[in-house]
Every structure is written in structure tokens, then in C-alpha cells.
């Protein structure tokens, strides 16, 4: 009885708050139109695309050897990259948590964790080609190997591992720090040496977390479009195959069915990760560590570990630096000196660099505040309010996390090129900047929502309740109490959204029309054509933009932030 009354009361409170209701309705409409609908239309299309309902399209694509090969390729790469990334990530995390490093090594570690976040997706592929390709600086000019090929399986594996292991490193670091040090001390005083402690206690406690890191990387690797595109050569993955199916074979129905297959794979992984492993991770790591863990003092372990990780870190950092330098070589692969600015000049004089810069910048600039605000509203609703559709909102925004950009891109093509359900309604947005902005928003929404939720969970509910008691409505409370309290988190969400948008490629490349020149698309185009100098020059411009944005944000938070910077864990 009491519960029914409580629900009725909640509903009454909600209805008395029209702003709240409007927001929820708008939000549901947005999520349905731009996340659920494009995915639904893919399903519909792949079953009825040929006019008759059935599996005919699936039969057709599974009969294509290119497609079945792409599936095995994708899974093979994802699996290996997942393993490598989580192991290297674990090593880095272990060294950071258990070894007291000097400032230099500490700085390297920090840089390694930061670089992949703020860099465009192609950077490592480009520098891989520059360093180890046929005309690679290291392979050709240092080692005198003239026929080394970086294109293909190993190229993708190496580049993706280097791109994704920092994510694992950050995830696992948070977990390692949460292991109660007394567990390890208990094992140690019962007579276990350090290796035994690691094998018996630390590793078993980390296993669910490692599985989690593995799956997250697996999903990222499967969804990755940019790297396989540039360094994959003839080794096609699902994402590139789908792209080629649309842009090369003009087979939209086939591409839709392929996208459904890709989506099923990532959704399955995501479900396992979300509902099985995350719960397990939480169950084994309950105690909050109150003091630091037992550091490794033994020099014979400590020194090699630190040196190995520092070398890997240095290598990764060098690869990131290669791109701006590569943009200054007079002739890629043959003539390195004197460094020149001619490619940058060409970018701006011959290849519409300014327009590309402007288009990318403006579209991302419009998208990022929308993303930041939307994700804050969603996290606010999820964390602080009770209402019927809450489960829907939470589920759909999480779903977006598991959708590869390529799948979303195909969904938009199928869903909007002929209007809603091919009726012509809303057809107007197809091919415009608006749909690009929407894609930017949808693609960055999950990250923003996730960090928003964790920021809001730290605010005590009673603070807001006291504002309600004093008679403020929900908009007012949100604007005057909640928002100021999460100002820093909002700001970093803003910048993250900006960086993610301006470096986005996978969905965008399917939807962009010639009237918009986006930097990432340009990089892809020039790299495809083999004009690596121009690709590097464009990438450098992009790097400068993203780094400045992050730098500005840090400065701003430092001088105007209310709370201190919210820690990554």
C-alpha cells in the first residue's frame, strides 16, 4: 500500500514540475529518433530490404567470402589486441602502483595515459607507416630493410594495441589502487613471497577487472575504423568492409545486414562486460584502500620493470611526435632535411585547409555544448530523480556505448536518406550539417553521461533537497545548485565532447557530403592516396586544436574551478 502511495506521490510531484516533464519527453524523443530508430531500421531493412521478408539478404552476405573473411579477421584482431592491451595495461598499472618512480618515468606514464585521449585516431597508423613501412625511417634507413610491409594483420594489431592499452592501464590502475593492501600483507606474513602474493592474491582479485579491460578493448578494436582503413591494406575488417560495401559496391541493403552482424557481436560483448564482469569486479574489490600498498623495494625487480615500461612509453610518445615531424619532411620517405613548412602551405593554398579547419571546428564547437548539457541532464535524471521512463533513458544511452560508429553511420543513411521509414519526413536533415552535429552528439554522449553520473553520485542528495524545500523548481535547482557543484565535470565533459567530435571519423565518413570538408576525412583521403605528408600536415593541425582545447580547459579549471580537478578515478 505504502509503496503504491509513494509511487503516486512521486508521480504527482513530477507532474507538478512541467519543465521536468518537457525535458523528459524531449529527451526520449531525441534518443528514440537518433539512437533507437537508426538501429531499428537496420534490422527492418536487412530482413525486408529486397521487398520480401526473410533471411535472403543475410544468406547473400554470408555467401560473400570477403564478408566471412572480414568476420574472422575482425575477431582475430580484436582477440589479440584485447589480450595484448590488457596485459601491457596491467604491467603499466602494476608498476605505477607498486614502484615508486622518479619524476621522469612518472611523467612518461602520465603522458602515455593522456595522449591517446586527445589524439586523432590515425596518428599511430601514420607514424607506423612512416617509421616501419617500405620507406620507413627505421626499417629502410637504419636497418636497410627495403621490403618491409606494415600493412595488414600485424600492422593493425600493433597500432591498435598501442592505441588502446593506455585505456586498460587507466582502468586497471583504478582497480589495483582499490585492492586492500592488508590482503597482500596478510598473504605475506603467512610466508608468501612477492611473486606468490601476486599469483595468489593480486591476480585472482584482478581477474574480473582484466576480463573487463579485455572486453572493452575487444569492442573498441572491432569498432575501430580509422586504423584498419589506413594500415589494414588488403586485410579488411568488418568496419572497413561495411564502408566499402556502401561506398564501393553501392549495396546499402547488404551493408545494413553486415552492420547488424557487427552490432550483434559488440552488443553481446557489451552485455557480458556490463552485467557479468562489472558486477564481479565490484564484488571482489570492496575495501577502499586506506594506505598505500607495499612498494617493491627489490632493485632487481624494480629497475627492469621501470626501464621496460619507460621504453614502451617512450616509444609510444615518439610515435605520436612523429606525425608533426613527418609533416615537415620535404619528401616523405626519401628526403628528410631541411625540414620545411611547404606541406602546411599546400594544405591551406591548394587543399582548402582553412575551410576544413573551419568546418570541423565550427561543427564540433556547436555539438560539444549540446553533448555536455544533454549528458549532464541524463546523468542528473538517472542519479537524482525517480520516474517511469528512467530505465529507458539509462538503457538507451548505455546502448550507444556499444554501437560502432560505422553501424550508426549506416543506420543514419538507411534511416534518413529517404526520411523517417522512407516516407520523406525529416529527409531535409540528411546531407546537412545538422545531421553531422547530431552524429557528433550521439557519439560522445555515452562517455559524457558516464562521467556525469560518477560526478553526480558524489553530491549528497540533501544539498539539493534543501533547495527544493526552499521552494525552487527543478530547473532552478539544477541551474543554481547542481550545475555549479559539477561545474568542473561539466567543463571537462564539454572539452571531451569537443575533442571526440573533432577527431571522429567512423560514422561521419559515411554521412559527410562534399559541401563539408572535415579534417579527419581529409586525413583519411590523403592517407588512402598515399600522400602521407599532407595527411600528416592535416593531422598536425588537428593535434594542435585538440591539445590547445585541453590545455585551455586545464588552465580554466585551475584558475576558475570551484572544486579541485576531479580525479580520473
Amino acid at each position, binding site marked *: 500500500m505504502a509503496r503504491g502511495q509513494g509511487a503516486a506521490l512521486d508521480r504527482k510531484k513530477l507532474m507538478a514540475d512541467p519543465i521536468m516533464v518537457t525535458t523528459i519527453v524531449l529527451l526520449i524523443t531525441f534518443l528514440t529518433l537518433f539512437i533507437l530508430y537508426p538501429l531499428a531500421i537496420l534490422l527492418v531493412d536487412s530482413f525486408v530490404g529486397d521487398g520480401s521478408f526473410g533471411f535472403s539478404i543475410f544468406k547473400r552476405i554470408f555467401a560473400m567470402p570477403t564478408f566471412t573473411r572480414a568476420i574472422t579477421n575482425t575477431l582475430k584482431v580484436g582477440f589479440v589486441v584485447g589480450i595484448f592491451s590488457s596485459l601491457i595495461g596491467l604491467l603499466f598499472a602494476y608498476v605505477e602502483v607498486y614502484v615508486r618512480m622518479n619524476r621522469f618515468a612518472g611523467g612518461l606514464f602520465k603522458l602515455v595515459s593522456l595522449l591517446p585521449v586527445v589524439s586523432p585516431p590515425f596518428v599511430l597508423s601514420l607514424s607506423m607507416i612512416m617509421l616501419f613501412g617500405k620507406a620507413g625511417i627505421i626499417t629502410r634507413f637504419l636497418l636497410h630493410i627495403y621490403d618491409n610491409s606494415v600493412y595488414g594483420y600485424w600492422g593493425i594489431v600493433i597500432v591498435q594495441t598501442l592505441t588502446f592499452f593506455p585505456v586498460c592501464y587507466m582502468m586497471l590502475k583504478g582497480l589495483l589502487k582499490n585492492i586492500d593492501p*592488508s590482503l597482500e*600483507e*596478510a598473504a605475506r*606474513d*603467512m*610466508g*608468501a613471497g612477492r611473486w606468490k602474493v601476486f599469483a*595468489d592474491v593480486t591476480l585472482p582479485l584482478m581477474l574480473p577487472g582484466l576480463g573487463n579491460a579485455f572486453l572493452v578493448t575487444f569492442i573498441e578494436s572491432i569498432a575501430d575504423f580509422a586504423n584498419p582503413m589506413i594500415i589494414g591494406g588488403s586485410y579488411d575488417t568488418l568496419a572497413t568492409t561495411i564502408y566499402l560495401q556502401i561506398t564501393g559496391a553501392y549495396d546499402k541493403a547488404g551493408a545494413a545486414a553486415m552492420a547488424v552482424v557487427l552490432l550483434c557481436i559488440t552488443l553481446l560483448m557489451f552485455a557480458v562486460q556490463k552485467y557479468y564482469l562489472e558486477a564481479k569486479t565490484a*564484488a*571482489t574489490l570492496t575495501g577502499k584502500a586506506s594506505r598505500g600498498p607495499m612498494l617493491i623495494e627489490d632493485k632487481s625487480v624494480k629497475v627492469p620493470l621501470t626501464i621496460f615500461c619507460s621504453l614502451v612509453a617512450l616509444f609510444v610518445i615518439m610515435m605520436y611526435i612523429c606525425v608533426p615531424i613527418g609533416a615537415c619532411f620535404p619528401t616523405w620517405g626519401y628526403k628528410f632535411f631541411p625540414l620545411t613548412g611547404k606541406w602546411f602551405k599546400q594544405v591551406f593554398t591548394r587543399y582548402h585547409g582553412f575551410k576544413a579547419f573551419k568546418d570541423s571546428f565550427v561543427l564540433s564547437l556547436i555539438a560539444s555544448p549540446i553533448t555536455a548539457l544533454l549528458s549532464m541532464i541524463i546523468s542528473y535524471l538517472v542519479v537524482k530523480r525517480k520516474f517511469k521512463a528512467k530505465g529507458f533513458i539509462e538503457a538507451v544511452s548505455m546502448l550507444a556505448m556499444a554501437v560502432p560508429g560505422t553501424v550508426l553511420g549506416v543506420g543514419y543513411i538507411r534511416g534518413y536518406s529517404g526520411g523517417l521509414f522512407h516516407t520523406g519526413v525529416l529527409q531535409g536533415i540528411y546531407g546537412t550539417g545538422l545531421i553531422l552535429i547530431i552524429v557528433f552528439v550521439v557519439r560522445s554522449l555515452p562517455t559524457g553521461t558516464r562521467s556525469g553520473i560518477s560526478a553526480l553520485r558524489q553530491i549528497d542528495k540533501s544539498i539539493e533537497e534543501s533547495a527544493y524545500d526552499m521552494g525552487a523548481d527543478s530547473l532552478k535547482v539544477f541551474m543554481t545548485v547542481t550545475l555549479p557543484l559539477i561545474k568542473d565535470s561539466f567543463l571537462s565533459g564539454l572539452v571531451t565532447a569537443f575533442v571526440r567530435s573533432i577527431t571522429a571519423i567512423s560514422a561521419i565518413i559515411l554521412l559527410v557530403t562534399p559541401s563539408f570538408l572535415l579534417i579527419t576525412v581529409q586525413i583519411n583521403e590523403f592517407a588512402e592516396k598515399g600522400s602521407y605528408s599532407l595527411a600528416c600536415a592535416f593531422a598536425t593541425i588537428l593535434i594542435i586544436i585538440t591539445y590547445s582545447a585541453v590545455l585551455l580547459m586545464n588552465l580554466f579549471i585551475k584558475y576558475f574551478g570551484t572544486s579541485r580537478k576531479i580525479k580520473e578515478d
Partner: protein
Amino acid sequence: MSNAVIIKDAVKKYGDFIALKGVSLDIKEGEFFTLLGPSGCGKTTLLRMIAGFNSIEGGEFYFGDRLINAVPAHKRDIGMVFQNYAIFPHLTVEENVAYGLKARKVPKAQIEPRVKEALELVQIAHLAKRKPNELSGGQQQRVALARAFVIEPSVLLMDEPLSNLDAKLRVQMRTVIKKLQRKLGITTIYVTHDQEEALAISDRIAVMKDGVIMQCGTPTEIYAKPQNPFVAGFIGVSNFLDCTMEQDGLVDIKGELKVKVPVKSTYTGPARLSARPEQLFFAEAGMPGEVQFSTFLGDFIEYEVKLDDGQNLIVNEYTKDTTEVHEAGEKVFLNFDPQRISVYEAESEEVITC
């Protein structure tokens, strides 16, 4: 084999902060020894130095006659019970208890009976197959205990093992611990900031403050003869009074009362007197005051008495020794048994009485 633990001039530094300022202890074989002191005094720090988890900045640590300063933690042959139990969440109860035996390469055939025996000793044999998250706090604590003593360590260390339990369970578990320790005869070093727990459980207690040992002795010694005002105030309740020490053990309290106490030094001059509430009693003459209020607590009555100079004293009177209750507002005189109180020098806080 159980070991004596001898610590000579232990020093611990955290950067510029000196957490232990030359601590010396002589803990006997088989003894139940407690480190007691307020939060932050360095109890945990000292315990973790004995365990080998903290570096040692100065001093010598011996187990028996073996210097262990350079011996790593896993070779010190210790068992430790942690405040938060630190049971391995991924192992069952019996796997937890067996862990130390396996790590010490005890033959397989011996492991099972020893684990069983240990679990029976702490009365949780029926929970052997459970995972830690299926246990109550008290049961987890028993697992931690069993795990620590099953390896028959030469020294057992416990850092506030009962502080996460509720009051009733705490009293129950401390009896379990005490009985177990008696039975096994393992040298045990126990850390707590609960003076009642320390008095109840220990053979000897070291009272610490700011990285220094203030007094070391049996519970009765420490309670009856605190060596300085800090110990007098920290253990139990004490009333402090300013007084003047004169020749031949004569104590003059504000000119109102003059008593003769047994002394061991010839100090004269300003001093402080401490008396337990039960050492004060109402008399025909003595320090004049007025009862503020009285609380009937069953076996005794607690009075708050305001002396004429404004100071408040706590006086306990056993119900069995009295027939009347003094009411608030009543004028009374307070006196005490000079044999049992302690007097300290005002400046150095050194004890004068013996």
C-alpha cells in the same frame, strides 16, 4: 616456537615527522602484550615495524635472540590479524585458513586436519565451504583469527581486531581471543585504543603517547599506580587537584586538607594529585564542596561535586557501603585514602608517590 620480542630504541620517521621517538619494549615469551594509546600515537606504526611492513629508521628488533631488522616480512614467522580482517574474498573459509600452511609448504596430508582443528577452535567448522561475503562480521573475524594462528607463528600481531564489531560482540570476541591465546601460548602483541579492552585482555600493557611509551606494566599496576598524569587520565577516570608537596611526604591541598603520602623522592614544591572517583569519599572534614547532581548506576552512585574554589570532582560511592543518597545542593566534605592516590611534580609530571 613462541618467541620473546625485544625492541631497543625503535625510531620511525615519515619525512620530517618522527612517529616513534626511541621505543624500547621487552615482551616475554607467551605473553599477551597490548599497545594502548590515543589515535595517532604510533601503535600501528610500531606493530607494522614488527611485522616488517614498515621500514625501520633506528633501533633493533629481536625475536628471541635473532635480530630481525633485515628479515623480510614473509620470513619473520608472524601471524597478523587486521582491523578489516583482510580475508581473501576469492577463497573459501577453509582455503583462507589453509593459505599460510600451503605457503609454508606444510605437507598436504597435515593441512586438512590442522585447518579443521583451527576452525573448530574458533567454532566455525560448519562454515568451512563458505565464501567470505557470506559471513557476518564476527564470523569473518574468527576466520582471520584462525588463519593467523593455524600457522603457529612465533609472534601473533593484532591491530584493533575488534573495532569493526558491535559492542556486545566485541566483549564476546575478546574472551575468545584471550582463551585461545592462553591455550596456544603464542606471544601476542595487541593494538587497541580502548582502555577497557586493554585492561580486560592483557598480561601487560604499554601506554603510548606521541611516539613515546608513557608507562609499561600489568593492568593493575597501570590502573592503581599511573606513573604520570597522562596515564592517570587515559586509563579510567581521574580527578586532578593542584597541591603543594612539602617535606616528609606531606601534601597540602589549597590549605584545606593536609595528608601524608608514601613518597619515593624528596621533591618539594608545586604538584598535582590524582585520585580515582572511588578513592574519594564523603567525610566529616576535608575539602568543602556542594553536590551538583547524583546518578544512580546500580552497584554505585556517581556524584559530581563542586568544590568551593569552583573545580568539579567525580566521586563514586558503592551502593553496598551506604544507606543514604546525597541530594543536589547538599554541602559536603571530601576526603581520600592517602595510601592510594598519586602525586606528580607540577613541572616535569614525574611521579612522587610510591
